[in-house]
């Protein structure tokens, strides 16, 4: 086999990394290079430097160190039994590539993951070494996200946290039985144990920083995980319950949902079909309801049937239609929690309503200026000059509020 150029390796190892959903570069500490004289900064919010035609942001250089892997996880394109072309970057190549891209303002930083080569410890050591060289040798101040390997030595995880802004461990699938069936080398229990360990270190470091500014940072951007949707039979209720548990027990920043995409050379044991993108979208919406809107999993699932979310309408609307007795909500008097439950009204809209109503009672004209779409919220609210009347009880409300049917796209996948 002839030696691959850096560009050829990049093609293979970017291809291999694109099934990772996260590209977030936000939520870390504020940092710049004024003092160090190096390159790189992080602000409160991340920057998306480009967008791919799949609508996803390109913020980080998201690559695998290598797609050689001794593990054989059926849903993964890089599993050892896959026919995919293989390549491996050296530590130096990744460091150079990151700096070359960063200096041209293509990226916010690096999201590095890897197949397991030689052993989990060896692989993890290499990942940590990339981060160390960037930070220490090159005074790199950009964002670093390392995908850590649960099977590796906890000591390595600790070192990774010193250099990385964010660490993540993939939970992979919603339940342990699916993990042992589809990813025989992995162990759900071990993954959760490592995650708990990681969560504890993030929490402790944060607490220490509060008492001393000199305390070392440990993954200040927190930790996250990813779950694959549609590769096993888990229903939405199961998935959301798992997420809720993860947020609660391990202090995760985010749970990413990744619809299982048909991958080249997929395993026989998996559904070969277009990825359930709408399902993934609804799960993200439900995830938001869990984290920012005060919903519980059981409340969200009231809007679904047989453990699955309604794919036609968003989960908040679905919940509201099952709980019409709680509406209409008086936009001028209701508390924040009730406002947040109005379908079509988000956190920002609620904040604006709370502020605006201090000046005067709100009318529809005021709401039109404040909200994204008044049409959507009308059946669920009362304002100074508005009452939905019998609309709310109408059986056809569902049909009227669902999105208009889309024309079939010749090129749709």
């Amino acid at each position: 086999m002839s030696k691959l150029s850096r560009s050829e390796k990049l093609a293979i190892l970017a291809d291999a990394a694109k099934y990772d959903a996260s590209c977030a570069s936000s939520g870390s500490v504020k940092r710049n290079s004024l003092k160090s004289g190096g390159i790189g900064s992080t602000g409160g919010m991340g920057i998306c430097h480009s967008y791919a035609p799949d609508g996803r942001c390109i913020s980080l250089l998201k690559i695998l160190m290598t797609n050689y892997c001794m593990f054989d996880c059926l849903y993964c394109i890089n599993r050892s039994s896959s026919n995919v072309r293989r390549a491996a970057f050296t530590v130096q190549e990744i460091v150079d590539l990151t700096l070359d891209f960063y200096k041209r303002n293509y990226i916010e930083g690096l999201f590095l993951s890897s197949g397991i080569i030689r052993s989990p410890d060896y692989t993890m050591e290499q990942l940590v070494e990339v981060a160390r060289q960037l930070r220490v040798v090159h005074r790199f101040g950009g964002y670093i996200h390392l995908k850590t390997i649960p099977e590796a030595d906890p000591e390595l995880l600790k070192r990774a946290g010193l250099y990385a802004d964010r660490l993540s461990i993939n939970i992979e699938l919603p339940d342990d039985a699916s993990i042992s069936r589809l990813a025989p080398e992995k162990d759900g229990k071990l993954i959760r144990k490592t995650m708990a360990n990681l969560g504890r270190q993030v929490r402790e470091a944060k607490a220490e920083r509060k008492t001393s500014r000199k305390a070392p940072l440990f993954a200040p951007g927190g930790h996250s995980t990813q779950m694959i949707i549609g590769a096993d039979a888990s229903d939405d209720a199961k998935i959301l319950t798992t997420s809720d548990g993860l947020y609660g027990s391990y202090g995760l920043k985010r749970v990413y949902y990744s619809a299982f995409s048909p991958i080249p050379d997929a395993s026989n044991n998996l559904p070969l079909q277009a990825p359930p993108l709408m399902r993934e979208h609804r799960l993200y919406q439900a995830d938001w309801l869990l984290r920012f809107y005060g919903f519980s999993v059981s409340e969200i699932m009231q809007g679904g049937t047989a453990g699955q979310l309604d794919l036609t309408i968003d989960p908040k609307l679905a919940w509201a239609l099952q709980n019409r007795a709680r509406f209409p909500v008086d936009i001028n008097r209701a508390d924040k929690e009730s406002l947040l439950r109005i379908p079509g009204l988000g956190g920002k809209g609620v904040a604006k309503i709370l502020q605006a109503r201090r000046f005067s009672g709100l009318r529809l004209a005021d709401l039109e200026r404040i909200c994204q779409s008044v049409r959507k919220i009308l059946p669920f609210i009362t304002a100074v000059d508005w009452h939905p009347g019998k609309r709310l009880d109408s059986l056809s409300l569902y049909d009227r509020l669902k999105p208009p049917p889309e024309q079939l796209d010749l090129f749709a996948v």
Partner: protein
Amino acid sequence: MAANLQSNRRTYNDYRMALKNEVDIDGWRTHARALLQAGVAPDRVTWTVAGRSDGRQLDLTGPAALPEPDADRPARSIRIAKPLLSLINTGLLHRNEDRFDLAYRLLYRAQSVPGLHGNPADADVLKLNGYAKAIRRDIHKMHAFVRFRKIGDCGAGREQFVAWFEPDHHITEAVAPFFRNRFTGMDWLIVTPEASIAWDGGKLSVGPGGRKEDVPQEDVIEAEWRTYYAHIFNPARVKVAAMKSEMPMKYWKNLPEAELIPGLLEQSGARVDAMVAQPQDTVRFAERATGSAIEPPASLDQLYQMLQQQTDAPMEKFAPTLVRGAGPENAPIMIIGEQPGDQEDQQGRPFVGPAGQLLDRALAEAQLDRQQLFLTNAVKRFKFTPRGKRRIHETPNVGEINYYHWWVEQEIRLVNPEIVIALGATAARCLTGKAVKIARHRGTILPFIADRSLLITVHPSYLLRIPDAQGRQVEYAKFVRDLEAAAASVRQDRASG
């Protein structure tokens, strides 16, 4: 209030306030303060910007001067809430000409309605908020979409980069600190039509605007960036509207990666179809046609005797001992290794060396009894290179493997197992006649000749060679799992048969 306004009314009702340039916010602030102190109503003020080639601004009817402070009345005290001030400072970078008017009107109104800026339903507040939002977005997009091109390295280890960018609003100076804080360690210059900003490691400077042609048109790394862009795109999820809303087409002309978009979209459908329609390459290992003039042996004993007498067997580099297979002659599982090793050659029995011991351990873990299995090798003699007193194992070549193939086939026919387990590449090649990727096919029950099954896995000697203990453990577990799969398939056959 009304009385105050009345007292300030002059013969002309228009104050023409001149600003030095589009981003002369300091000038605006000075004027606005004076106007406010004099209580001049917003509808009597016009703001002009020097150098703006706009016919309307040649209208010189109004006084450029401010009203004289009224000696009888002390100047009004002005109250400006901080959030309003910062909203104005941002909003004034907007390209719309009415921004100076709007900002002054808000300032004026805020004097009688404190907290006005906090009312998101107010039309003026809404408008200026809209401007500020547009500015923040424009700044954010400039942070995101500037693309530096390298023009050189000067001594001292500093590299030089230049970029061309076309912002929508007057934000160029405002973004300079961001780029300084981020790209401190390199020299850079960003040119826009209106202004340019530069950093040399010590000082930020602002200069006149320029043209796209002034900036180099390529950079070697751009090819790699395009490679990355094309390969991070997942053709299974096309969302063009989402992309365009975040990366509007007006920016595309200055983004090196954007030229790829039409092509990527065009191919995406076909790429996904190819993935979904891709036939599974389930391997079917057919019987190999091996015409042999030799009469097939009737028993294993006869087989090994016949083989012993063959004169055309490859002997160069091979030890003379023929190592026979071992195990019950009707074993349901037959394991085929590569060739006898040093120990096997000395003892004349298969799988007794270090690899054999590891196999024993793995078999036990997989609940298989070695005594009930038939174990043999693809090549029946030990191939080696002498080094001092030691005999170093050498892998048999294709010709040597092929020579023994017919004999292995006879062994299988005579033992008649339900499943054959091939350990390693040599055994797999012997049985299938082709090079087999072990990693790809291992662990699955494959159909094999005469209704038998075949399972391919690694050779235990491979496990012994893994230097990393942790890695060895992972591979060992996989090996045991493969053996378990073979055992399970036999049990299943028994249960259903």
